[in-house]
């Protein structure tokens, strides 16, 4: 059935809603669903850019990207563009609907929205993405509004049926009830009537004190099939007649394929075909074992191209040079030069952070079936519309002929915001008769990632006689991810990510004279991309390390020093105090142990962490405990927030202690978990997470746990050893010599 037929279109003036400060006008349509029942079509903001682009709901053409279907059986189905990659979205988003619609969470099922339907087409050239810790933030208002609209209309339909005043009726657990007469009607019996009703002029959302689901640790909906092997990830896709391929791209970034001798590979049982691309070779086989053996048996000639001699040292030299130049001014408060000239003490420090790989546990894979008149793509992607667009471009088929079937993501962390592996899989599949699943080896994953950029930062501060900062200057040099990933977001030499936590939003401290500059310096050859915690992983490390250095120079306690600067940021101060109290800040520790603290406001959430470390005489660092206090506004699912903080801390800890991608002769030197080390069970600290009760709008939770960790760790190492870590990952040799 055509959605645009018989559509009931109304503007909902949410600004008039009592007890809710909804400022936007939202479009929503109600219609009959195909096969009976009710369909609500509405717009969810495109997540990743919600920070800096115009509200999607102000567009002229109504292009819904989310739908709620209520069937005659009473089942509620939510079709939405956000994807599940472990962050709990498939539970927290339905919770928003279930709360306002007054149904049990178990009555809501979820379908990932494919980008192939006509109704999603308008989102193609926008960004249909899951990332940036934005899903709940973006969906918070529209989803509750959609649920509340449906609930009010169901109540009206029942009242009409009974010929009573709607205000005498209420909704509860999937039924409308007329309390005085005791009459009840299930939603399923009302949906066909509702489809014919006008949308109410005014929609009233529940007051937070009346929430029964939001704020509870509802059980996750996606996990039962993840403990019994049934959950299907991208790499698990099985299509009848499917072949399996594995691939090797030119080991040097930017290199090309010259030629291949595949005679040995083709002799391997199970190998069917060798496919040549401009910069890669793939072996098509019956199974991964044959494909891997086939790949190893190829004799490949590469043209290594312009990056054949590229090394990390050269990239770092370029960044260090760039850091000497003035940058684009991202923030200028007061007069830094004047304040610096009048300062009693001047502190300067240089920081560096390495390239990082994502190393999602599920290696990249994509299954593609290209036919003359159509193409199917099975993949786990954070950007479904881009997946569709790249398949259309490679095949030359129109968008509507590309069907993308989204799968669960075995970790995203930003890697699946990229479509390089999808483009490649479609290029391979174009040359294969029938469906083919392209699976990357772990080596390919580590050596052909799109890396968290390398950054170099220079910090200068002037302190007054009492040791408090009167001037703050921060210059950062590194790659702009947005400039490549979404060029319109890179404006006037700046983007919304690269200085998050340094300039916009700034550090939460009262810093009266402040200058923050950015020098864009792209590494030759090395692709850079979003990585869990993105800009803040770099900025929070720099800012929170430097604040700690200032506290040390002022001979003040790191928590007290920060507290004194947080007078205008009560929420930051509150998380700092909570974390310090729970961590037992100030209580004595044995020799070789120390505590470190960090505070941040990024992704719309306030987080403070206290890490406790032990450093032995060999320079080995053991993190024994991390205490984390979070104020992320209204909490939808407290257990999910805790889980995301725990996971974010482990992710940040692995990176700060171990992770570094280095380049030699244009090649990544690491290849697998033996040399790109992960955090393991025996290295995992105890973690305590404390949530601050708040009525503020929800903040992000997927990434703040990661960005807060590194400075808490290195500040703790300083407390334990007196050695200041200004370059990540932590260098054990440096710590060892510091102890001698």
């Amino acid at each position, binding site marked *: 059935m055509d959605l645009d037929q018989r559509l009931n279109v109304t503007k909902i003036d949410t600004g008039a809603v009592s007890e809710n400060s909804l400022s936007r006008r939202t479009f929503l349509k109600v219609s009959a669903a195909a096969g009976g029942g009710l369909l609500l079509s509405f717009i969810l903001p495109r997540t990743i850019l919600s920070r800096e682009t115009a509200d999607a709901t102000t567009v002229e053409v109504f292009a819904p990207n989310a739908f709620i279907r209520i069937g005659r059986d009473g089942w509620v189905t939510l079709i939405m563009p956000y994807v599940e*990659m*472990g*962050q*709990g979205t498939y539970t927290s988003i339905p919770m928003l609907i279930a709360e306002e619609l007054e149904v049990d969470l178990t009555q809501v099922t979820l379908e990932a929205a494919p980008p192939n339907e006509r109704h999603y087409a308008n989102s193609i050239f926008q960004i249909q993405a899951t990332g940036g810790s934005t899903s709940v933030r973006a969906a918070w208002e529209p989803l509750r509004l959609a649920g509340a609209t449906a609930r009010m209309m169901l109540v009206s339909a029942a009242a009409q049926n009974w010929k009573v005043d709607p205000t005498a009726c209420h909704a509860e657990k999937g039924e409308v009830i007329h309390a005085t007469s005791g009459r009840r009607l299930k939603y399923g019996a009302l949906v066909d009537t509702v489809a014919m009703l006008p949308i109410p002029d005014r929609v009233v959302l529940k007051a937070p004190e009346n929430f029964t689901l939001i704020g509870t*640790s509802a*059980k*996750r909906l*996606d*996990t*039962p099939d*993840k*403990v*019994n*092997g*049934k*959950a*299907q*990830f991208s*790499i*698990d896709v*099985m299509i009848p007649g499917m072949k*399996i391929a594995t691939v090797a791209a030119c080991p040097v970034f930017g290199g090309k394929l010259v030629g291949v001798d595949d005679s040995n590979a083709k002799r391997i*049982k199970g190998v069917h075909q060798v496919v040549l691309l401009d910069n890669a070779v793939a072996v098509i086989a019956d*199974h*991964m*074992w044959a494909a*891997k053996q086939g790949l190893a048996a190829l004799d490949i000639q590469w043209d290594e191209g312009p990056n054949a001699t590229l090394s990390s040292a050269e990239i770092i030299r370029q960044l260090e040079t760039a850091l000497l130049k003035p940058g684009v001014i991202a923030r200028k408060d007061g007069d830094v030069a004047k304040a610096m000239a009048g300062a009693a003490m001047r502190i300067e420090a240089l920081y560096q952070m390495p390239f990082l790989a994502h*190393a*999602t*546990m*599920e*290696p990249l894979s994509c299954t593609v079936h290209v036919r003359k008149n159509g193409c199917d793509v099975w993949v786990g992607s954070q950007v479904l519309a881009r997946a569709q667009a790249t398949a259309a471009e490679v095949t030359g088929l129109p968008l509507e002929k590309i069907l993308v079937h989204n799968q*669960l*993501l*075995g*970790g*995203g*962390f930003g890697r699946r915001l990229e479509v390089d592996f999808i483009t490649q899989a479609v290029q391979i599949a174009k040359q294969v008769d029938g469906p083919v699943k392209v*699976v990357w*080896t*772990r080596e390919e994953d580590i050596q052909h990632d799109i890396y968290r950029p390398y950054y170099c930062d220079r910090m200068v501060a002037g302190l007054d006689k009492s040791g408090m900062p009167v001037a703050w200057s921060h210059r950062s040099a590194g790659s702009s991810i947005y400039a490549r990933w979404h060029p319109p977001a890179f404006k006037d030499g700046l983007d919304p990510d690269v200085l998050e936590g340094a300039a916009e939003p700034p550090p939460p401290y009262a810093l009266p004279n402040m200058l923050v500059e950015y020098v864009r310096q792209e590494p030759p050859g090395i692709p850079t991309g979003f990585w869990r915690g993105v800009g803040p992983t770099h900025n929070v490390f720099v800012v929170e390390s430097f604040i700690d250095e200032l506290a040390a120079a002022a001979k003040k306690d790191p928590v007290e020093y920060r507290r004194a600067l947080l007078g205008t940021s009560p929420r930051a101060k509150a998380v700092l105090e909570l974390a310090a109290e729970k961590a037992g800040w100030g209580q004595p520790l044995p020799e070789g142990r120390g505590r470190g603290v960090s505070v941040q406001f990024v992704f719309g959430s306030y987080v403070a962490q206290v890490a406790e470390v032990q450093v032995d005489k060999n320079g080995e660092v053991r993190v024994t405990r991390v205490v984390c206090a979070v104020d992320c506004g209204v909490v939808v699912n407290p*257990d999910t927030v805790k*889980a995301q903080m*725990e*996971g*974010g*801390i*482990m*992710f940040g800890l*692995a990176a700060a202690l171990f992770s570094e991608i280095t380049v030699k002769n244009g090649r990544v030197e690491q290849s*697998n*978990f*033996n040399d790109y080390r*992960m*955090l*393991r*069970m*025996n290295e*995992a600290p*105890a973690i305590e997470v404390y949530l601050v009760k708040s009525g503020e709008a929800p903040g992000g939770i997927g990434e703040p746990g990661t960005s807060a960790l590194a400075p808490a760790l290195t500040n703790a190492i300083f407390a334990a050893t007196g050695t200041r870590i200004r370059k990540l990952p932590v260098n054990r040799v440096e710590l060892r010599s510091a102890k001698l």
Partner: protein
Amino acid sequence: MFTLNINGKDCEANVPEDMPLLWVLRDVLGMTGTKFGCGIAQCGVCTVHVDGQPIRSCVMPVVAVRGKKIMTIEAVGQTPTGANVQKAWLDLEVVQCGYCQSGQIMCAVALLAATPQPNDADIDAAMAGTICRCGTYTRIRAAIKRAAQPLK
């Protein structure tokens, strides 16, 4: 041609004898619950039981498990310990992306079968070989302890 005893049933697989069990399970028999993570026995997500012992199927040639009893995540819930571990995993909401959890659960079940009341050092020793990139380690530890408690 190999006859493999998997989850109590005999299956035929016409594969080379040096082919790792992982790919036989996943690509030949279509049992995708056992995951591929590294291919070099570094991450543990491919863990299955062979005669009750946890092994890394990505480096185990299929010839080496002929005639042995293989158990995978698809059937481990049929054992009391397996069911207990799965329940503890859900009770404590261990899982995030879930990709490594087949391997984590197979390692935990093997641990509890050998050591019904493991201490932290036992848990570290049994679980350190299995990587979780989502960082669910604290909950895995807690879930193992919960599963270790005697059934009431």
